[in-house]
């Protein structure tokens, strides 16, 4: 059942972290599984039910739980994982703030938290405390108690405004 006429499979062209990748996936394949199968294992599988936010990615700049998103529905969209935001030599201000302010422990929730924070800050560069709580309320973290996560996001928001990344 892999012929081109097979209606249950489709070859998708996805733009992931600025690169176009092609993948042939069935209709029921989630974006989470499609990305991990392509080797984007920085997208973490936490619950596959939308409870924890570990699998969040940016789809055209907006954070989505990739476990609740079918791969077919993001065809032609731009997908960004935490790896697409920055790397060891050039970290994104959010990534730097998470390290700087100790907002990481085991690190499993971290990619999803950074993606959720990015999505929130691109809509609202000067978030109030309640905005940050609201923006990160879909992401569970069992290690930190969220205190340093909150701190890191608030500090990154300031750094990003100063750098002119947001206005």
């Amino acid at each position, binding site marked *: 059942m892999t012929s081109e006429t097979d209606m249950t499979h489709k070859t998708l062209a996805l733009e992931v972290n600025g690169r176009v990748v092609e993948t042939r996936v069935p209709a029921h394949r989630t974006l989470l599984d499609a990305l991990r199968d392509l080797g984007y294992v920085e997208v973490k599988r936490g619950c596959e039910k939308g409870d924890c936010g570990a699998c969040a990615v940016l789809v055209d700049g907006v954070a989505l739980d990739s476990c609740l998103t079918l791969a077919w529905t993001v065809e032609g969209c731009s997908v960004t994982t935490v790896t697409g935001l920055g790397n*060891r030599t050039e970290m994104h201000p959010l990534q730097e703030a998470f390290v700087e302010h100790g907002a*990481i422990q085991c*690190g499993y929730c971290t990619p999803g938290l*950074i993606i959720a924070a990015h999505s929130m800050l691109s809509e609202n560069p000067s978030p109030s405390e309640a905005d940050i709580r609201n923006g990160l309320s879909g*992401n*569970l973290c069992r290690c930190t108690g*969220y205190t*340093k996560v909150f701190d890191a996001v608030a500090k990154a928001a300031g750094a990003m405004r100063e750098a002119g990344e947001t206005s």
Partner: protein
Amino acid sequence: MRELRSIGKSAWRKDGIAKVTGAEQYASDVLLPRMWHARVVHSPYAHARIISIDTTAAEAMGAVCLTYDDVPKVRYNERIVSTPPHLYRDRQVLADKARHVGEAVAAVAAPTERAAELAARAIEIEYEVLETIVDPEAAMRPDAEPIHSSVLLGGTELPIDNNVAVNRTIEVGDIESGFARADHIFEREFHTSRIYHAQMETKSVVCRPEADGGITVWPTTQSIHNVRQLLGEIFSIPLHKVNVKRVAIGGTFGSSIQMNSVIPICTALALKARRPVRLVSTREEDIYDHTRYETRIRLKLGVTDDGKLVAGQMEALADIGAHNIQAFALLSVLAGWWVSLYELPAMRFHGTAVYTNKAPSCAMQGFGNPQATFATETLMDEIAEKLELDAIEFKLENYVGLGGTFWGQGPSVQSIVQSDGVPELLRVGSDKIGWQNRPDPGSQTGRYRRGIGMARGFHTSGAGAPKPGEVIDYSGALVKINEDGTVDVVHAMMDHGGGTLDAIAKIVAEELGVPVNCVGISPADTLTTVYDVVTHATRGVYAGGGAALKAARKAKAILLDYAARVLGIEVDALVIEPDEDLCQGVIHCPSVPERSITVGALAKLCQTNSWGSIAAVESLRQVNAPPAYVSYFIEVSVDTETGHIETRRVVVGADCGTVVNPAMAVGQLEGGLSKGTGYALVEDAQWDPETGQLASRGYWVDAKIPSISESPRLENIETYFADTYEPTGPYGAKGVGEAATNPCAAAYANALHNALGIRFRQLPITPELVLAKLRAQAGETLLGGQTAGPASAGSRGT
């Protein structure tokens, strides 16, 4: 003492950049050529005999199938931390009988996860359903269906009667005459809940068979060496052919102290399929795999008129679920934590651990300590109130501190307390919260009522002791100086995320006199590291760091011997100091400044002259287990119309000796508060008594843990450290991690009593429970059993 260069200063964690850029590798991220994917077939029944398993259809789909007939008939205990005579073995790779919903009864491997899932569904299993036993008291009835007929204790068959896995009685002094001396005797019952660890990463593993008949394994685990030894034993593979690799762990909180059940299943599949196999648990599978020990505790304390404790008795019933992972050890520590809180001239402990048809219980942050401390600290608060004593003074009068005997890890792990920050913790905390200005209990009448509560506690730092006992506890490390002055630390310890390995790097840097940035923590596996028992019992910094310090000292001695030869200066006159610009240490003699050499230049000289490598390997058993003390002061506001509890302020203090990395230590306290709050107010795994299913069905959304929305505001959390030095610890350090949750629930219960005049002796303290208690207090008739909601659990503790 010389100024410390690395220890005590906050630094970026070494794995931080990898974690924020997605480069960190967890078990489920390991991708290997030719790798297949596994799925496990779980019992949908809580208690059932397996009549037949038909794998024909799954095999026709191309899957490799595994049933009970395929696995080695070895009964094992998955947590080889207790010494062999104290290991209760009731597990096999796949179950011969289903003892809880979610028990693994078969497994498949196939080229894709999807194919494995379809093949798993195609396996047909016929069950004979047996009586489901959910309640531990019902389990002990003579007519209850036996969950295990017998287990192996050490190597001997041990019959199991009345589903009691183990009993333990511990007595010190004469309990009868002890209580006879008491002017007042208080006796109360407490009930603590069964909660899910909720670590973010589900248990996962990859196994690759090797050409020489061996295996390489990448597991979620807290101990690579214990996984290695168990796999070697179960599959009869010599240990030099079993290599277990360290990968990052996405949180465990105790859930991976034991070798996880997916690990031998994946190994068996890989050996049968003759190719690498990956097995990643789903969240539902994980929720049905492990849980904290639920306890029912009857606590009795005798006290004199002037507030001196004279005798204590604890009776504990622990629900261990379907397998005995560490029930013997749990009963030991329940007794140990309790008697190490307050001096009891006479004590008696009796504990019973009972099998039920639920997910197996295992250690979870604090291992019995949150339970024992909840009971003890709630009752101590009540005694102080009844005797009209200040709770802080009453506790200071009776606590086990400097010079006292601490045996948190049980009667065989006793040592003398040599550092004690308790008076400072309580004095500072009470000032910060405004202890003297708290309201009188039950004096308020408005809708919102404010209360302040405190509780104290501790956790051990490791399980070391002067005598060999029931617990294995030692670590080992290799420290190697490289030819450019950088340093490799090869250590088998796992880092849960708290920064244990960063602390070890700091300790080595401090000892060698090099900058911490030039100390690397090497990737670790069981072939290239010496034994480390497991990262548990808050032993990482104290015991793991202690071993690294011992190896670093030896490497430093070799380094200085060579330096003395090269520089022509007596070895005792040499010092090594870090040079941040050179990013390495410089060896010199302060009184002969013209002669110096960098560590790198010396190591290179040793290599080019063929003198040899500068390296040392050491093992260390700590012969003490010092308590890391913690105190909690919490202010709450209770809405008496909704039962909602708002956490207004929290002041958490810790005595962890020298604070190795202040930012990470604060992170441990904040995380401990979050998990402690979940335990106190929110989390409760409820089981259907008929089916043995979780009410949440394994969905996180219905098994709630605290999110950022419920967390206290940043500015309302205050943390601080006592100024102490542990003489037996590396640079004066002891543990912190698990201590951070232990007193939290009791502090909430005491704050609620202060606000409402009502005692809470069961967890979690939900809004429904608050409302039920308020109505009972007002003398209203409860509107049927539903009013109290799922957390009511009868009238226990009232």
